[in-house]
């Protein structure tokens, strides 16, 4: 299908990120790696949101998937080790997504968004109240692989992005893309044309939540500490939605470019403008919508869908 045109660009940026620890940035090296970590992670989260949005489900539950993954991985890592804990974290998020998805099948657009928001708020309260989560005080998380390898978190984050990109590219270049696009544009018509809409929606939500849960797990291993307000943050869910719109919806390249630009931009603005940097950030969002209605990738070509 389409999307071949951007493939070299996607590949190039991935290679750049893979090599980032070895590029000569001098004193900025470590700082860029830390920024890079969060760029990769939040870009992956944004891609996972886009993957779901392609079916027309506007998820505000990505903060919840992120939090589910973060807490499950954080709780399990001491017993099971890093990778199994991350995997189970992702699966927990996936299970949450299937529960959410199957009861909200008939909700569309903003109704789905608000139901998923409500879901997220309820889960946050659970994290706050359950006896084994550390409650409001928070949960310490061990670093990955007992801290043996300093670049571990960076490459874990890179791995999450790689997975998100691979899933997104697969979805974009297989018939699944048509099923998603048909479902988004009209569920009734899609069904009459034989698209198994329920499956398409649930699969998309499942894949998206697995990536989001994985991202959450890696996040905890970087910050070493989770609290319900941070891990289940609504702000993070919103960021996951802002990035794809900013970069260009329903594509792989859009969230990728959007994530790299927007997350780095925020870090840079904070560093150089400091007070009131979010005023500039807000203004940039507005200007992009007004002048680049298809997002940043709108500059590259006119297609989407």
């Amino acid at each position, binding site marked *: 299908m389409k999307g071949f045109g951007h493939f070299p660009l996607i590949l190039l940026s991935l290679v750049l990120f893979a090599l980032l620890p070895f590029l000569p940035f001098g004193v900025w090296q470590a700082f860029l790696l830390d920024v890079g970590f969060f760029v990769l992670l939040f870009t992956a989260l944004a891609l996972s949101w886009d993957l779901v949005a392609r079916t027309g489900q506007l998820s505000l539950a990505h903060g919840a998937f992120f939090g589910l993954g973060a807490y499950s991985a954080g709780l399990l890592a001491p017993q099971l080790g890093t990778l199994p804990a991350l995997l189970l974290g992702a699966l927990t998020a996936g299970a949450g997504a299937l529960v959410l998805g199957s009861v909200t099948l008939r909700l569309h657009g903003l109704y789905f968004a608000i139901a998923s928001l409500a879901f997220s708020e309820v889960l946050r309260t659970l994290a706050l109240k359950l006896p084994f989560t550390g409650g409001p005080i928070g949960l310490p998380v061990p670093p990955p692989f007992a801290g043996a390898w300093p670049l571990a978190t960076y490459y874990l984050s890179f791995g999450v992005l790689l997975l998100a990109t691979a899933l997104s590219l697969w979805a974009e270049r297989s018939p699944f893309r048509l099923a998603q696009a048909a479902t988004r544009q009209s569920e009734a018509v899609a*069904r009459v044309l034989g698209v198994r809409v329920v499956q398409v929606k649930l699969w998309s939500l499942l894949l998206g939540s697995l990536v989001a849960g994985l991202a959450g797990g890696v996040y905890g291993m970087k910050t070493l500490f989770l609290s319900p307000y941070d891990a289940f943050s609504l702000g993070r869910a919103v960021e996951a939605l802002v990035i794809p719109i900013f970069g260009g919806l329903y594509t792989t390249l859009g969230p990728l470019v959007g994530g790299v630009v927007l997350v780095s931009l925020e870090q840079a603005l904070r560093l150089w403008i400091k007070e009131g940097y979010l005023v500039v950030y807000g203004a940039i969002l507005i200007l992009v919508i007004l002048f680049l209605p298809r997002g940043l990738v709108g500059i590259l070509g006119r297609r989407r869908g």
Partner: protein
Amino acid sequence: MGKVLEAAGVSKRFLGLQALKEVTLHLEEGEILAVIGPNGAGKSTLLNLLSGLIKPDQGRILFLGQDITHLPPEARTHLGLGRAFQIVQPFPELTVRENLLVGALFGKPGTSRKEGEAWVEEVLRLTGLQSRSEALAGDLTLLEDKRLELARALATRPKVLLLDEVMAGLRPKEAEEAVALVKQIRETGVSILFIEHVMPVVRTLADRVVVLDYGEVIAEGTYQEVAQDPRVREAYLGRRA
């Protein structure tokens, strides 16, 4: 010839309004059946029931002898029951070819990408949409939209096709073309049930006509037969007066 599609005593209420009342009708293999009736007679409800978008309160729907009353729309499509909508609803962000590909790939489970693409080529040719195949569906003219609607239903390779006022809004010349197209589709072995307002179209196209009024079947027969039926005349004229 046997019955390919059958509605047996189908009823449906909406919020206390009786939209369909024990409707029984059938479609013969290879036949073109028209369902007509004044506005609000329940024609669209009937089509939605047949294609599975809504479920009947009572009665059964049989397709090729199989009870499909409780099957979801996509499963009916997989069995070979296709449908085109009255208000054309292309996927505007996909190209014409991609629109058809949706039907071709998902309409029959197990269709390979290659088979699907080949079939889409054929449908494009049949419906005269080849030259527009790479255009975004959102950019089509009304006539092209109507063709796409038909083509997309056809792409699912149906044995039975349900058409919902596909001629509405077309100029006489364009309608003539569309009629020819529908006849051509029948030639490929597809049985057709269609809803129509435009009477000349019904006359030239339909082998048989069923008339609905207030959710009930009030007449059935050839165009000439039902046109003579006093109840039909009353239903149409009485309301207009």
